[in-house]
């Protein structure tokens, strides 16, 4: 079943299971919008922190940040980003090269931020 088969008046965001996520806010769309807009700054910031941690050899820090991003994106219904964050976390835990997953993460975070800005407007209204 397509989670984005919306009822009138609810959000449609590409790559986001908005109905399931909105249920976690008990249907309070205003609060859900608040956290989506917050992601516009949170997402790129945490992706940057992960890159920085890897560059400085702070392996545990990079794992923890990826884990946090995975949790946040899962709760917001961002299934694709959640899956990429999970892959990055696993790659880091296994000590494997993480560059490709990191780049994929940064690209998807940027796309998601643009999608949210586009749908909800720059001010999120």
């Amino acid at each position, binding site marked *: 079943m397509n989670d984005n088969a919306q009822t009138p008046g609810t959000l449609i965001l590409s790559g986001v299971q908005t109905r399931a996520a909105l249920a976690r806010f008990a249907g309070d769309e205003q609060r859900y919008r608040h*956290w989506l807009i917050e992601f516009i700054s949170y997402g790129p910031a945490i992706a940057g922190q992960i890159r920085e941690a890897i560059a400085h050899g702070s392996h545990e820090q990079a794992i923890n940040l990826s884990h946090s991003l995975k*949790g946040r994106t899962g709760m917001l219904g961002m299934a694709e980003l959640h899956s990429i964050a999970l892959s990055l976390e696993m790659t880091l835990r296994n000590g494997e090269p993480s560059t490709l997953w990191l780049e994929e993460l940064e690209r998807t975070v940027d796309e998601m931020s643009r999608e949210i800005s586009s749908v909800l407007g720059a001010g999120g209204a």
Partner: protein
Amino acid sequence: MSQSFTVFVVDDDPLVLEVIRTILQADCQIRTFACAEDCLAQLAAEKPDYFLLDINLPGIDGYALCRKIKDDAALRRTPVTFVSSHDTIDDRLRAYDAGGEDFIVKPFAPEELLRKLKVAQNMVLNQRSLAVQLKDAELLSSLAMANMDETGILLQFMSRLIAMDNATKVANGALELMQRFKLDGVVQIRLGSATQTISAAGKNLPLEVSVIEHVRQQGRIFEFRRRSVHNFERVTLMVNDLPLSDPDFCGRLRDHLSLAAQAIDSRLQTLQSEAAKRLAQAKTQSALKNIGDAVMELHSAQQNNSIAGEKLIQDLRESLLDAFCRLGLTDPQEKLLQDVVGGFTTEMVAVLEHGNETQRALLRLNDQLAQLRGH
């Protein structure tokens, strides 16, 4: 209990705290903390009924926080559910080792979280009951008074096992056996389609069930870290805290528990076959009753036929006498007709007598069926 039930939620993501508050606030009081240290500080002033803990936390992590909670005598019975996006068997074992009762994976559906709350509320209600306190007291006193060696404990268990007539009694007996060996553990009994998992913490706790489901696939005897698992077809005994500092005692425990598990399995097999026999007997009884009812219906029908036949003969005689008067027949004519009807009546009486014999045979058959049914 809802509003008097307090939940402490610890998670470093404010979004998760908001979501959990939104979902649960109608059913309980919520206190949220961004780190374990804040939660510990509040615990000095207030004891909650339930904890929801993230694992990855800044500073003290969720596992360590859980251990601190379980080390506190005033909190050790308070249920802990881990809320995390970690989801491997190793994560679940670590959560269980830390003393957690349950585990929920992010992202979760609201209904799932509400269900976890309901389970915790039931658990707390059970713990508060006088029966639990009484059982603790009895166990303590029996531990203090019993001056038995290990073999004595095992023999006593074996002798009591024979009298245990259902799976719940067997499960409780096995758990008590482990407790008498001063072991913390879990018992899972599988009888037919019913499975029950019990430990000192409660019954069918999701995290314990999940761990047992994993370890029961690992062979007859399986040991890892401080755990020892004894698997048989119908029972799994899992010890959580083997006294590794005493290898001799560990060896003896291995033998005792294997023997106990084997005996439990045999007892369960017997219970299973007794239950199957009871079922078969019930079916036979039911069939005998149905046959008895059918026999009595036949008897009744036969009796009705007999009564109807006798009445017909009587009616025929009366009709004949009436006809003689009306028709003005000669004596020879009347005699001829009386002979014809007399012959018919004699044959009919013989038929009716045969029917009576059938009725008596049916009654005898019904008596025999009643004897078979034990009446």
